């Protein structure tokens, strides 16, 4: 649904530079928010065009009288079109935070809206739901909390048969969930988890994507690791429900894999797994094999599309891919002789070394993976030398980052220990001078000295 929506968007009026600047600003704001543990983002479904008055012109802010008027018209109007029109006007006004505040402060407004939401007029229902959706987008938790009377109905409608309506309810729920803990505290006993578990069997892709979104917001909550994920929390527990199996099913590679849906459920799994609540349970459902196969599938797709040399560009677009990939490699190789052997026999050492210049973080991780291999003993180090490793290490010794140099020293130590012939070559290639640079550095001194001794004695 979202990729279709993006396909229909026209490019904005402003230039590329402006776009880049905005994106950088947003990124900086997101990083700051994350550090303050205030990372909240929402999704908004808006179907209609901007007002006829012109492009970029949004509906006016509504005052108290107007809100009351529209509500009354919606409730008591005689013509259905008139009632619907009143709700549409209200909805447009609710795009503004000021109107939202006016609305929630008006006595009886939410009661009226909930009445319309549950009326037997389908189109009024839909418009009322859209009004709620606008309210759910507010950044004020008071507005989200004002929507509490509606949540039992939003959940009830998840088991209805109107897929557009279900989708709208799901996105509204997702937005409300992330905004306020009070909302979550109500939704859990109201049975949101069983409701989602029933809804996940829908055949509609748009519904599934919306469900994944709502679920990811629930799982991102601070209290999720204690109150929402663990199997012990009975009816409100994610792990005790059938949701994990269904999520994994939607991540199976193959022709039925929908990217928009898969993205949402992948994030859901991430939040569950890094909460470290009960990962063996997920492994029991086949999480490792599903995710492994999916990763292979995606990597295969990347290889087919990217020419040699463009992989680095790809990594620039997705900067977290490299560290995360290397993290995976570390965990695979740390205690596994077979994985280390595979790394060697598939000639992956040299490609790994090519990643060293990317960044300090990446360097440290590459060197750590190589240390995992080297520490397994002489049989492994023999395969690391001769070759590009030593020159690469001499190169990293020229870095100024202490952690990079420190990890290089560890690797050198292992190499010298298990492959003594490397020492001579090291000396011949001005290794001692490379070491000298770091003699004064407190964190490196001892190791530099030890290596100098080894080199001179060897």
């Amino acid at each position, binding site marked *: 649904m979202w990729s279709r*929506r*993006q396909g*229909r*968007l*026209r490019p904005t009026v402003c230039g590329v530079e402006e776009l880049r600047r905005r994106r950088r600003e*947003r990124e900086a704001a*997101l*990083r700051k928010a994350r550090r303050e543990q205030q990372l909240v*983002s*929402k999704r908004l479904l*808006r179907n209609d065009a901007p007002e006829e008055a012109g492009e970029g012109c*949004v509906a006016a802010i509504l005052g108290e009288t107007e809100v009351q008027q529209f509500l009354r018209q919606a*409730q008591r109007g*005689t013509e*259905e079109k008139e009632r619907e029109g009143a709700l549409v006007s209200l909805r447009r006004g609710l795009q503004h935070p000021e109107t939202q505040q006016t609305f929630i402060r008006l006595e*009886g407004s939410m*009661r*009226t809206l909930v009445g319309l939401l*549950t*009326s*037997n007029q389908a*189109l009024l*229902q839909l418009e009322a739901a859209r009004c709620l959706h606008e309210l759910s987008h507010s950044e004020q938790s008071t507005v989200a909390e004002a929507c509490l009377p509606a949540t039992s109905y939003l959940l*009830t409608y998840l*088991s*209805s*048969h109107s*897929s557009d*309506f279900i989708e709208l309810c799901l996105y509204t729920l997702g937005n409300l969930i992330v905004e306020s803990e009070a909302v979550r505290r109500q939704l859990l006993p*109201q*049975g949101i988890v*069983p*409701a989602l578990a029933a809804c996940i069997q829908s055949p509609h892709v*748009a519904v599934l994507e919306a469900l994944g979104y709502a679920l990811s917001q629930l799982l991102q909550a601070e209290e999720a*690791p204690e109150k929402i994920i663990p199997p012990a929390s009975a009816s409100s527990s994610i792990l005790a429900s059938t949701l994990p199996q269904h999520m994994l099913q939607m991540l199976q590679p193959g022709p039925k894999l929908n990217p928009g849906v898969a993205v949402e459920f992948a994030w859901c799994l*991430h939040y569950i797994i*890094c909460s*470290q609540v009960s990962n063996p349970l997920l492994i029991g459902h086949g999480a490792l094999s599903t995710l492994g196969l999916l990763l292979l599938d995606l990597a295969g797709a990347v*290889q087919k599309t990217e020419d040699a040399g463009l992989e*680095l560009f790809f990594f620039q677009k*997705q900067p*977290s891919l490299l*560290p995360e990939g290397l993290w995976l490699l*570390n*965990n695979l190789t740390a205690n596994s*002789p077979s994985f280390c*052997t595979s790394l*060697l026999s*598939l000639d*992956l050492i040299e*490609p790994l070394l*090519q990643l060293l210049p990317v960044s300090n973080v990446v360097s440290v991780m590459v060197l750590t993976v190589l*240390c995992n291999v080297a*520490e397994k*003993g002489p*049989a492994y180090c023999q395969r690391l030398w001769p070759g590009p490793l030593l020159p690469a290490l001499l190169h990293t010794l020229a870095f100024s980052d202490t952690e990079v140099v420190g990890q290089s020293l560890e690797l050198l*130590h*292992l190499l010298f*220990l298990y492959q003594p012939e490397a020492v001579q070559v090291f000396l011949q290639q001005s290794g001692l001078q490379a070491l000298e640079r770091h003699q004064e550095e407190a964190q490196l001194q001892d*190791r530099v000295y030890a290596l100098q001794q080894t080199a001179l004695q060897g």
Partner: protein
Amino acid sequence: MQLPPALCARLAAGPGAAEPLPVERDPAAGAAPFRFVARPVRFPREHQFFEDGDVQRHLYLQDVIMQVADVPEKPRAPEARLLGRVPAFACQVAGCCQVFDALDDYEHHYHTLHGNVCSFCKRAFPSGHLLDAHILEWHDSLFQILSERQDMYQCLVEGCTEKFKTSRDRKDHMVRMHLYPADFRFDKPKKSRSPASAEAPGDSGERSEGEAMEICSEPVAASPAPAGERRIYRHRIPSTICFGQGAARGFKSNKKKTKQC
């Protein structure tokens, strides 16, 4: 990063038969001042390691919002897969004269009003689950008999298996345990007179507020509701909202407005 050209072929060929190389550690490897130890790493969810990924995720969520203002004029049907604007057409269900100009509006109307309809009293429900509960509790005489002896009123919340002696007990449970509103529209106690005579077709599971005040046909609960609760009941449903007679009137007026019936 240049991967070895033969890599794909070798990976496709399946796992090799190679045994892992023998592991042989020298104690000097971990001796001070060196401190490397091979170990898997775990990051808790708030760790900075996930910052880049989280930022990506939120940019993805927000990207669409940033461009909403530029969304071009769409036909009334939000989904391109449906036909968008079509000449006005009427609902085909007998007795319903609602007219539409967009297919998705019709879809929603159909599911809401004609989807889960009780064949006895013509009430419509949002889901099969609620319809089943309604039929059982309102139209099944066996249910009435059994309920005198055992707890038959099932909690309406998905996933809850609790059952209760009376409709009122069930409501109390839903209010206390599940934080449902006391005036939840889809859980009204059955009224004493025959439903078919009172309700117009196409009505939803609602009742006018007058009916909610009537004595239930089921046996009186051990602790009758205090008078105060009834007052709250009345207060919760604004007098301007009327789902019984009022909705029927509204429905009839629609009939006048549409082209043909």
